[in-house]
């Protein structure tokens, strides 16, 4: 079985948030749900300031606090190491969300169909799209995945359940890269199998020093950062997105 991991090259990231958008369209996530988020940071005082950027997907931790606290096993580890959310089992207690130190969980506070940015209830549009909401609804997300055949793909699935970055399980199972990685204009995001010594991620991790976020929490994240340092308490977020439903 593969051991999937993501490697993020901070030296390349321009903080453009194209990954955020690629994720949103691919996974049909509702308003304000940013499974992939990119921090824009500022440090220091004028004129000795430093500006940098840090993408934040789900860390898909190997010792995932969210998996441990899930009362019903809706949040679970797949054999390939992806931390998945079975939205058919989730009871919406949001314990995973409070347990997660990374803030990657998003709850469906509303009926997703009514939470896709615009009122898509439009006759002229329905004539073309057949009335799907959103009009760019991705049918791949409707399939069960993994040997366990559980419903883990995509966002905006049901009111009152938790969702988060899936590492694009529906793409990964087809041998494609997660949408954010596939689209990154600066090739700052990498994805692959750590068990394969020739994969990009293995090679990058061999070549460059890396860190993982909040490693001291013992969560053993599967997202590695190279080419930079973790944020410190002196790191201020700028241009933060505070989208609410």
């Amino acid at each position: 079985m593969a051991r999937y991991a993501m490697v993020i090259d901070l030296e390349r990231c321009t903080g453009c948030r194209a990954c955020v958008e690629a994720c949103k369209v691919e996974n049909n996530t509702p308003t304000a749900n940013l499974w992939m988020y990119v921090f824009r940071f500022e440090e220091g005082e004028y004129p000795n300031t430093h500006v940098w950027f840090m993408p934040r997907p789900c860390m898909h931790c190997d010792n995932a606090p969210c998996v441990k606290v899930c009362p019903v096993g809706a949040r679970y580890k797949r054999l390939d190491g992806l931390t998945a959310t079975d939205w058919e089992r989730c009871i919406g207690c949001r314990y995973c969300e409070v347990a997660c130190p990374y803030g990657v969980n998003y709850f469906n506070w509303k009926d997703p169909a009514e939470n896709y940015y615009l009122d898509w209830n439009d006759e002229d549009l329905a004539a073309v799209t057949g009335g799907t909401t959103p009009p760019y609804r991705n049918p791949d997300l409707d399939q069960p995945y993994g040997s366990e055949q559980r419903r883990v793909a995509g966002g905006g699935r049901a009111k009152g359940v938790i969702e988060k970055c899936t590492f694009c399980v529906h793409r990964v199972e087809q041998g494609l890269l997660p949408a954010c990685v596939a689209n990154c204009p600066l090739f700052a995001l990498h994805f692959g199998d750590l068990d394969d010594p020739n994969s990009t991620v293995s090679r990058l991790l061999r070549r460059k020093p890396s860190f993982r976020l909040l490693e001291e929490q013992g969560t053993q994240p599967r997202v590695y950062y190279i080419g930079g340092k973790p944020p410190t308490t002196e790191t201020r977020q700028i241009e933060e997105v505070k989208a609410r439903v």
Partner: protein
Amino acid sequence: MRTTLTLLLIVVGFGLQVVSYFFLAAPWGIPSSPAYSNPRVPFAPTIFILGVVLVFLAAVVYELLPERGQ
């Protein structure tokens, strides 16, 4: 008889709790596969609760069950 039944209930109750908690419910350890998300026996949590209920039911049984021979 009544005492026996009561004790039996307590023992069975605790037994169910222990068995369910450690052996029937989802496996222990750091979750690394879907197996950790499912109870090994369906409705294991219900069995645990049943155990809790049985233990306390013992008191009811103890009090309510008529004395032998009465």
